């Protein structure tokens, strides 16, 4: 078991290093930090001095090393646009994104899995067809469009829910901000969470359905029927368990998708999260933020992959046999 984890971590390190390298290359070569940091009328001597101060006259490898060291300490330099340490900026925005992402994931799961199971078992039938149509629209609907339509409907026309912002937030634990403590915070969360979760929900539903259909065709299901087992134990015992195993991986990776699509949702709803930060930095060529984001995202994905692998290991007994 530990060998498994260790080997996975070992595999993850080169990935991180490569991404780190890309992030660093981004940082150094694209855009010109010097030009931005110097006042308009600078002398050549000042420029050289700054280069020396920043360590930019050192060999490439040394710079890379410093970059990595700094990164490990959480020092990504200062944002060009906001003139604040990148880490602070990210820290401010992280709770917002996480709260949104987690809510959306829970929503996607809670609705997607049962719907998928239902449509997998009852292939025909009007409710199944309805679900399938909804799922098809869900997949064809770009996230931002859904957000816009929801805003139009619930905020502009009906006026039930707020259309932007996070509502009233409170600080807990010194650094985290949460919107769950206020009614306006929760109300503000509803539309963005639905928007963000919708795509994932339809994906989950279709995946669960497809897996369910595949599993129901398997020989062991045929044998279970031949033994006279009840529909209940066949569907919710044998079939469901075997369905969930491959679904788990995808669901784990879906969290990554949610983090990505939060970009769009945050933009539409002006939700003060990391996604909005990234979009703003891409359009203003704020390299430090972009490269820090890159590295951070890579880290998140590696961790998620590790967790998913562990889950797989826990659920599927076949993986525990090591020759």
């Amino acid at each position, binding site marked *: 078991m530990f060998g498994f984890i260790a080997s996975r971590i070992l595999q993850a390190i080169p990935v991180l290093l490569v991404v780190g390298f890309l992030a660093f290359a981004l940082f150094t070569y694209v855009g010109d930090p010097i030009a931005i940091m110097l006042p308009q009328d600078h002398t050549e001597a000042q420029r050289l001095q700054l280069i020396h101060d920043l360590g930019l006259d050192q060999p490439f490898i040394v710079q890379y090393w410093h970059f990595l060291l700094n990164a490990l300490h959480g020092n990504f330099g200062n944002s060009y646009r906001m003139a604040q340490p990148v880490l602070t900026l990210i820290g401010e925005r992280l709770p917002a994104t996480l709260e949104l992402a987690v809510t959306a994931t829970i929503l996607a799961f809670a609705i997607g899995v049962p719907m998928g199971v239902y449509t997998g078992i009852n292939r025909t039938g009007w409710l199944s067809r309805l679900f399938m149509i909804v799922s098809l629209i869900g997949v064809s609907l770009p996230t931002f469009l859904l957000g816009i339509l929801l805003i139009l409907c619930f905020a502009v026309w009906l006026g039930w829910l707020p259309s932007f912002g996070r509502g009233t937030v409170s600080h807990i634990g010194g650094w985290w901000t949460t919107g769950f403590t206020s009614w306006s915070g929760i109300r503000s969360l509803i539309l963005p969470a639905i928007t963000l979760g919708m795509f994932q929900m339809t994906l989950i539903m279709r995946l669960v359905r497809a897996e369910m259909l595949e599993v129901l065709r398997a020989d*062991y299901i*045929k044998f279970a029927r*031949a*033994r006279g087992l*009840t529909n209940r*134990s066949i569907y919710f015992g044998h079939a469901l368990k075997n369905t969930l195993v491959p679904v788990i991986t995808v669901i784990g990776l879906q969290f990554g998708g949610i983090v990505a699509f939060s970009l769009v949702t945050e933009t539409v709803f002006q939700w003060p999260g990391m996604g909005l930060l990234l979009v703003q930095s891409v359009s203003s060529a704020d390299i430090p933020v972009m490269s820090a984001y890159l590295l951070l995202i890579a880290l998140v994905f590696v961790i998620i992959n590790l967790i998913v692998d562990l889950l797989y290991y826990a659920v599927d007994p076949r993986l525990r046999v090591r020759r």
Partner: protein
Amino acid sequence: MALLDVIDLSVEFPTRRGTLRALERVSFSIEPGEVLGVVGESGAGKSLTGAAIVGLLERPGRIAGGEIRLNGERIDTMPPEAMRRIRGRRIGTIFQDPLTTLNPLYTIGRQLTETMQTHLPLSDKAARTKAIEWLDRVGIPAAGQRIDAYPHQFSGGQRQRVVIALALCAEPALVVADEPTTALDVSIQAQIITLLKDLTRDHGTAVMLVTHDMGVIAETADRVAVMYAGRIAEIGPVAQVIRHPAHPYTEGLMASIPTLTHRANRLRQIDGAMPRLDAMPPGCRFHPRCPIAIPRCTAEQPELMDADGTRAACWVQAHG
């Protein structure tokens, strides 16, 4: 009264190109405790017959005519819930591939106790004890520990033993065994067949043994039905069918089996191939390949008729 009566069973498959008749008026019966072998080439309809009997025909296949009676009671028209109670409890099934027949995510103990508790009123503890007994009886060593193992931790032969245990644990009166040894090593095949034979004899269970292996039939069966192109060509006591086959197809089958007692330079074979479902010849389905066909064979399809100790569907060899 026979345990199982199959009367004029027909199975068809509606397809885009027309309806294909996979089984055409198949009739036979099985007495309590007897072993009926069902032989034939691939595609002759043996497995379909078994599937139809337990009500597990795969869509779009459906029963197009005839009756299936278990202890006199019709089961082909039963509602699904009633049929479910019959499956496992009164008719057990053994499938071909032990690798895919067992759910890889459940322990074999769980699969056993689940089956038993579905059909018999047993407490968890009692079910578990019985499960261990069954594993023991099918020859799994250290049954007490192995009961919590997963299917992938067993060898192919052992898995099939578990499958046999699963088929018999609810104590059915009839077991349909569909090619139970085909997927196994030759050395294991004999063991499995012996196990099956012993267990069913001890419990008085009847067996419908579907296979294309005549050797297994000779060893195990009391009677044998030879199927060809969706019909029964010949049916009778094993010894009689093997030594004095009446139907030309059976005759060809027996002759094509190589033996050590007879020197020959070439293997005998039956010329031609079994016709496809959408290209059935009129009259007797075997007539294009038959060495003794007469004009009547091309026009009328023969039914099973008496022929010297067996029953055969042949205008020439049998007399109605």
